[in-house]
């Protein structure tokens, strides 16, 4: 999280933090994990009232930011959500809000309005079922048939598909990409719940069997949505990283405290140099995770030419080091660290999930290598 927040931002962050502490303390998370729903509608609506889904949408379309930089503001929410391991499809709802706000036009104003006030949910159906689960692989087809669009394919995992009224589906039309806003209850859409590592975040596999929607369901151009999809990916990546960094911060703080309270052989654990050195490494990973995430948020917000690369770099780094950091936290807790009763796994779960959604670190390193190669080619062309 950045050091240079405005006082408005700081107030906004604190409001969100207080709300989360009140509404979803750890005991509540355990309760929500058992019921299956993951969160209460009421909770989400109140979050939306705090602005959680409005920040990436222009005022003209009913949104608005705190600081003028909506993504920077939203980053603070995501960080706090991660720090509390809080429920809610924050990332996917905002991706859809951003897409509808910028390319949705009037056709989707109602869905957007529902998203903004938290009365309805729309989520992003982006990644696909194996073997098409690799980053950027889109096999679902969107075919124009007269005045209609026909969708065929399988999306997975789709967050909160069971409670979303609409799905923003990314599909392929010939060589191009197309995005369509599909009602979850459209004929041919089937939602199958999945299980996962996070206690409160829910996912499903969604099948589209010859699903027909009117051409007006398209968000942006049919066959011309690649740039928009890339933008959505970048948003999803940096927001997931913000959440993860929040989770890492909680896990780390908790473990530093434990190490100073816990005595072994008459000395606090934090006096053992072998552990101190590991804490130093963890602190470095944590600060580096903050740093690269902030840099990626700023680049994506500014639509800088380096945005795509920095977003993938952040995802690769936070995904990789974040996992190691939290497993170190578990290790330093010893046996209690793997019990359900202890809180550390709440943060480990959130990090583990975010590491993998929208591309593993390995997949993002492949993407980064492509940027490196392209950069070198540009240099050589220029020379």
């Amino acid at each position, binding site marked *: 999280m950045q050091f240079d927040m405005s006082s408005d931002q700081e107030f906004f962050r604190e409001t969100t933090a207080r709300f989360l502490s009140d509404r979803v303390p750890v005991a509540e998370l355990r309760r929500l994990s058992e019921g299956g729903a993951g969160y209460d509608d009421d909770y989400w609506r109140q979050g939306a009232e705090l602005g959680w889904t409005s920040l990436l949408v222009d005022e003209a379309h009913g949104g608005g930011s705190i600081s003028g930089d909506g993504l920077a503001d939203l980053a603070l929410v995501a960080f706090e959500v991660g720090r509390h391991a809080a429920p809610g499809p924050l990332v996917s709802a905002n991706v859809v809000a951003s897409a509808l706000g910028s390319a949705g036009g009037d056709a989707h104003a109602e869905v957007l309005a529902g998203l903004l006030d938290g009365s309805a949910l729309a989520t992003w159906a982006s990644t696909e079922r194996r073997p098409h689960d690799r980053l950027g692989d889109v096999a679902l087809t969107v075919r124009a048939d007269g005045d209609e669009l026909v969708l065929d394919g399988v999306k997975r995992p789709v967050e909160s598909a069971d409670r979303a009224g609409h799905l923003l589906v990314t599909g392929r039309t010939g060589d191009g990409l197309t995005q369509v806003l599909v009602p979850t209850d459209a004929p041919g859409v089937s939602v199958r719940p999945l299980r996962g590592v996070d206690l409160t975040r829910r996912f499903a596999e969604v099948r589209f069997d010859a699903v027909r929607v009117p051409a007006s369901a398209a968000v942006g151009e049919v066959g011309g949505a690649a740039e928009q999809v890339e933008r959505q990916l970048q948003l999803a990546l940096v927001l997931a990283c913000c959440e993860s960094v929040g989770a890492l911060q909680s896990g780390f703080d908790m473990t530093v405290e434990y190490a100073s309270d816990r005595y072994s052989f008459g000395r606090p654990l934090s006096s053992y140099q072998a552990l101190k050195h590991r804490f130093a490494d963890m602190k470095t990973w944590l600060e580096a995770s903050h740093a690269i995430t902030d840099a990626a948020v700023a680049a994506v917000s500014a639509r800088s030419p380096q945005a795509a690369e920095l977003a993938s770099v952040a995802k690769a780094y936070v995904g990789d080091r974040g996992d190691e950091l939290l497993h170190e936290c578990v290790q330093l807790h010893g046996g209690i*660290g793997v019990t359900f009763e202890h809180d550390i796994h709440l943060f480990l779960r959130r990090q583990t999930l975010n590491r993998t959604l929208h591309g*593993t670190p390995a997949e993002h390193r492949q993407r980064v290598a492509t940027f490196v190669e392209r950069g070198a080619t540009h240099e050589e062309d220029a020379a």
Partner: protein
Amino acid sequence: MSAAQIDEADEVEGVDAFRQRARAFVRDNLRRIEPGEVVGILRNDMTDEEELAEVEHDRKLQRMFFDAGLAGICVPREYGGQGLTPAHQRALNEELLGYEFAARMQSPTMSPCLAVLLDFGTEEQKRTHIPRILTGEEIWMQFLSEPSGGSDVAAALTTAVRDGDEWVLNGSKVWTTGAWWSDWALCLARTNWDVPKHRGLTVFILPLRREGVEVQRIALLNGFRDFCQEFLTDVRVPDTDRIGEVDDGWTVGTRWMFHERMLYNSPYVTAPPGQGHAGVGTRTILLAAREAGHLDDPQVRDLVGEARVLQLVGDALQERIKDGMTSGALSDQAAAIGRLYTGLAQARTTAIAYEVSGADGVVWGDDDGPLVDVGTDYLMRQISCIGGGTTEMARNVVSERVLGMPRERTLDRDVPFRDVPRSAS
């Protein structure tokens, strides 16, 4: 084994003859089990009823071994054992490969508990309990770790106070596997707070279903509930159930922990070779990678190769350590090298399974076969570096005891235990 030992064994029953006898018993009486490894990490795949049935089945198996003259191979005959040698035990273990065995009777019942009884028990204690252990009537637990103590087991806070011919125990023990279906426990307790920590401990034995013993199951983050915590409230133990001298429990404890570290290498344990390989293995990884559809990806293949490397190197290392300790080329403390390797290798192998599973490593459906619960195993990854003594403790042992580097400074050596700084919680 020295030549002298072999000669002695030959006088009793030759290892070859014994092996034939064992083989016949195994083939005639035991169920063959599927090849392949245990899947996943401590998965919660049985109901309590199923588990209790398994316990009863294990007791029955143990009884069958006993009746066939195959229980307590290295236990003296006077306590119901066979009075044979580690070579016989090894032969039996080898014959068990691919067959069911009395899994829940082995650790900690046979080692360290039975082993400690043999080393330090009174004649009466041995004659009472060892036969019952060998016939499957008594399953034992070790009451060693405490919630406050972590790796520092000698810092026990569980207190035993003398009251006539009895002792009154109060405190709490933790990380007992299956205490909820077990019978007896070996318990380390503090009998003197006014001397340094190692000099105020005493060991007792007690039945788990005695008044004042409350066994509570612990839920792990993956839902596994076989580990327990015990709360002892004014539990009365007769002095005849004391093991070793009063305040000399650390002499017992040292040996106790030696037996514990032996694990499946203990001469008292009857289990097919390779029981160390719990958890995620190469085969799980291969199946997950194949199911995920990425087995042709060179990066996935690299991970599969790495897992196999870790496995085969681990096998070779354990063999080397065993040979080295047997021949004296390596000290007994070298077992910590194997413990360190295994902990790290298993954690890494679990991480590899998660990595090759791609997106299905974090979100999966019930019909995803080998991909189911790989993510949950991953959350449990560190357990291999925690359970049975942390890898940090192993590193201390390797550096200090194997390499002879200076010992860590402890602030509790020459101080009465009651004055030692303790955890805040």
